[in-house]
């Protein structure tokens, strides 16, 4: 079988399991008594093992197998949980992640799993390498199920049914039926057995095969494997009504999902003789765990779709929106009343369609947030700090493209908070603060945008340090430093080449500063602000548009040219007479409600040809970072839905131009990128 087509799926699913493994490890670390977490971790490791073995990634299979061994011993209380063990498990998870990365990149890291495990899990080697296998007591005597035995009896398909049964809270019963020697029509009796058992559940296997049994190709006994949620009494009752047969053995096979395809299976048997039907011992049966029931509830019906197809769908909807606008234009130009109704309908439908497609592309920010607990834990350990990480609003949804891009800036901000923001526990104690620092990551939707807040209760940002550093790095002059307001000083941290870290650590202060964060967020059409209070903490606020493909924009006219300004950037618009424009040290300004607003004439910024000089001008007040700027245009045309098209490779990266959009009349208008316009 060609496995390549499954590779993407494998990687994706493995990442999910790895994520689950990491999360549960974290939970276990903070609460070592929750042994059910071990089961979840085991399950994740086990599934990874199964999948990687199927795909032929032996290194992963081996490593997960070693993990399983260790986890199993933890579950059996042969080994007790220690910080050391947790750390080794984390390391193993990291290793797995790297291996997955390597596979994604087209190669496999050949590792000697045994060797790695020996290093990782060296605290108790003798216990780890103990042979696996389950020992089970039955009523009459001892019956040993060696690991391989059960495996040989079932193929993968049947094992899968076992697993599903376990998930659904059903049990697998091995039912050995003996037909009396005197019986004339053995096949008929067998048929009745099948029929009766099938009222209880599903027969997944029989030995010999159904066909052979029907053909009476068996001596006096045959075995049926039944999946049912009913009790053994029910089975016995069903069997007792059939004459000339007896139940030779009724054994519940517990193929613990965690152990299934692996090396061992536990079986718990109750052996019965013909006349002794009631001597069962049902009290030792394992009840389906609450975890598996929970899991059952969580199963949604979903389809995995290639993101490219969604992009294609989105661009088709985009084209539809363009043509809709065109239709509206035709209607306006020709005043066709009969068209009105149809256009309204189309309007509604395209609106709905657009919403649906946009929703399909929405991904919960959980996907990004989930990485952080692990990262914060590692960083805090490394820095010797204690942190309580709070995640809020994980379910907040963002467009897939934004999700992909937002991860790095958030990582940066979190590292920043941990490294520069939060103090060491001793310092915090000295300051009469809780020695455990607080790092809060919050996401929420506000209207058409998503707000993400990274907040810590650390030392805050030192204005003097920023000033000093900014002067050192020639970001500002001494004179500027004396005149700048606090907020302006604070904003200097977003300037390129700026880092206040006294010493260069592994974490931050590597020259890659907050300016990268800022430019990334600006490129996503978002904004970032910072608030800080000395000794009390720092708060970074990121505002992002929900989606990038279709935006609301204000169309403005400069001479004969039309431009679109994203509504997200606009605070307000106002009209203005030329005489109100003042010149302050070469900078044109206007006083708006007592505040001085710097003005930029789009006409000169973009060198728009033409010499019309209108008496009345319009100012679009836009927000760039946290300063307001007035963009002067000749005319406000109106608000419009615009589909953002890229200008292509040749013209990409022109400062001030975010892209182009096609207007109702088929002409092209450029979209202004406020972030890079000035």
């Amino acid at each position, binding site marked *: 079988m060609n496995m390549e087509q499954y590779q993407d799926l494998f990687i994706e699913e493995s990442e999910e399991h790895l994520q689950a493994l990491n999360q549960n490890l974290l939970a276990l670390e903070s609460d070592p008594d929750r042994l059910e977490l071990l089961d979840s971790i085991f399950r994740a490791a086990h599934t990874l093992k199964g999948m990687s073995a199927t795909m032929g990634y032996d290194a992963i299979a081996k490593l997960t197998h070693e993990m399983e061994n260790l986890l199993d011993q933890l579950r059996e209380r042969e080994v007790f949980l220690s910080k050391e063990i947790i750390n080794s498990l984390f390391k193993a998870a990291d290793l797995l992640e790297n291996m997955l990365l390597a596979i994604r990149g087209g190669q496999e890291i050949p590792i000697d799993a045994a060797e790695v495990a020996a290093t990782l899990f060296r605290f108790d080697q003798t216990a780890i390498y103990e042979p696996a296998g389950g020992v089970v007591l039955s009523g009459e005597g001892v019956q040993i199920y060696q690991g391989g035995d059960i495996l040989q009896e079932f193929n993968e398909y049947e094992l899968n049914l076992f697993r599903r049964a376990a998930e659904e809270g059903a049990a697998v019963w091995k039912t050995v039926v003996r037909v009396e020697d005197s019986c004339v029509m053995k096949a008929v009796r067998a048929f009745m057995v099948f029929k009766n058992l099938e009222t209880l559940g599903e027969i997944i296997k029989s030995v010999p095969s159904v066909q052979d049994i029907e053909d009476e190709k068996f001596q006096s006994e045959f075995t049926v494997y039944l999946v049912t949620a009913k009790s053994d009494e029910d089975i016995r009752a069903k069997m007792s009504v059939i004459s000339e047969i007896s139940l030779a053995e009724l054994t519940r096979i517990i193929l613990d999902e965690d152990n299934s395809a692996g090396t061992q299976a536990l079986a718990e048997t109750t052996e019965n003789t013909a006349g002794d039907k009631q001597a069962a011992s049902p009290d030792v049966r394992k009840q389906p765990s609450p975890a598996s029931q929970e899991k059952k509830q969580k199963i949604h019906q979903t389809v995995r779709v290639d993101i490219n197809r969604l992009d294609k769908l989105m661009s088709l909807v985009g084209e539809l929106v363009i043509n809709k606008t065109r239709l509206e234009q035709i209607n306006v130009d020709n005043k066709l009343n009969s068209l009105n109704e149809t256009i309204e309908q189309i309007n509604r439908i395209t609106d709905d369609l657009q919403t649906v497609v946009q929703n399909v592309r929405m991904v919960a920010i959980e996907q990004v947030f989930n990485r952080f607990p692990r990262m914060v834990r590692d960083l805090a350990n490394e820095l010797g700090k204690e942190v309580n990480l709070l995640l809020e609003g994980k379910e907040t949804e963002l467009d897939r493209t934004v999700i992909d891009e937002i991860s790095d800036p958030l990582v940066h901000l979190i590292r920043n908070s941990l490294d520069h923001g939060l103090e060491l526990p001793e310092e915090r104690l000295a300051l009469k603060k809780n020695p455990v620092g607080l790092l809060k990551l919050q996401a929420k939707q506000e209207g058409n945008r998503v707000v993400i807040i990274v907040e810590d209760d650390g030392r805050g940002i030192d204005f003097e340090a920023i000033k000093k550093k900014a002067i050192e790095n020639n970001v500002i002059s001494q004179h500027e430093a004396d005149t700048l307001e606090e907020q302006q000083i604070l904003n200097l941290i977003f300037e390129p080449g700026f880092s206040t870290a006294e010493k260069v650590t592994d974490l931050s202060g590597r020259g890659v500063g907050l300016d990268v964060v800022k430019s990334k967020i600006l490129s996503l059409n978002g904004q970032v602000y910072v608030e800080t209070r000395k000794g009390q903490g720092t708060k970074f606020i990121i505002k992002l548009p929900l989606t990038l493909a279709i935006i609301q924009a204000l169309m403005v006219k400069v001479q004969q040219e039309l431009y679109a300004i994203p509504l997200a950037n606009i605070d307000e618009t106002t009209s203005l007479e030329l005489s109100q424009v003042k010149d302050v040290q070469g900078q044109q300004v206007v006083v708006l409600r007592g505040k001085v607003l710097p003005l930029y004439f789009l006409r000169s910024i973009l060198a728009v040809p033409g010499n019309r000089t209108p008496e009345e001008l319009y100012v679009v007040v836009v927000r760039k970072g946290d300063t307001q700027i007035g963009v002067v245009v000749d005319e406000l045309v109106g608000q419009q839905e615009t589909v953002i098209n890229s200008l*292509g490779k*040749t013209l990409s990266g022109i400062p001030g131009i975010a892209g*182009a959009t096609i207007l109702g009349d088929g002409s092209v208008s450029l979209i202004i990128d406020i972030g890079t316009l000035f």
Partner: protein
Amino acid sequence: MSDQYVAFKLDSNEYAVEILAVQEIIRWSNITRVPRAPEYIKGVINLRGAIIPIVDSHLRFELAGQEVTDDTRIIVFRYDDTIIGLTVDLVTEVLSLPQQSIEKHQSIHGAENQFISGIGKLEERLLIILDLAKVLELGVQH
């Protein structure tokens, strides 16, 4: 390699480009100026929903400016996944130029010679064969 070429005129000279690179030839349409773009980028147009940049060949080859006339056309090239248009004064014809009639020569002087891959001779006509890679090797200098 095909020996079919699209021939067109710029000023008084006749040029030719390989037909395989040509996606289509369209009439002059409204071009939206792109501020801050290189000078020889005339702007962008909407080609059935796609935004494509248009190169002004007069500016690209540093020829004297030319008014847009009824004959002005835009040749749309598909080159290396990029679709790009080039304005020309007049598209003359599609013609066949056998390899042996093309002289790989660098003896023509003038601004445009860096874009020339050879000279094709067809009876009395001389056709300047453009090196599309060079002509369309555009990049925005930031």
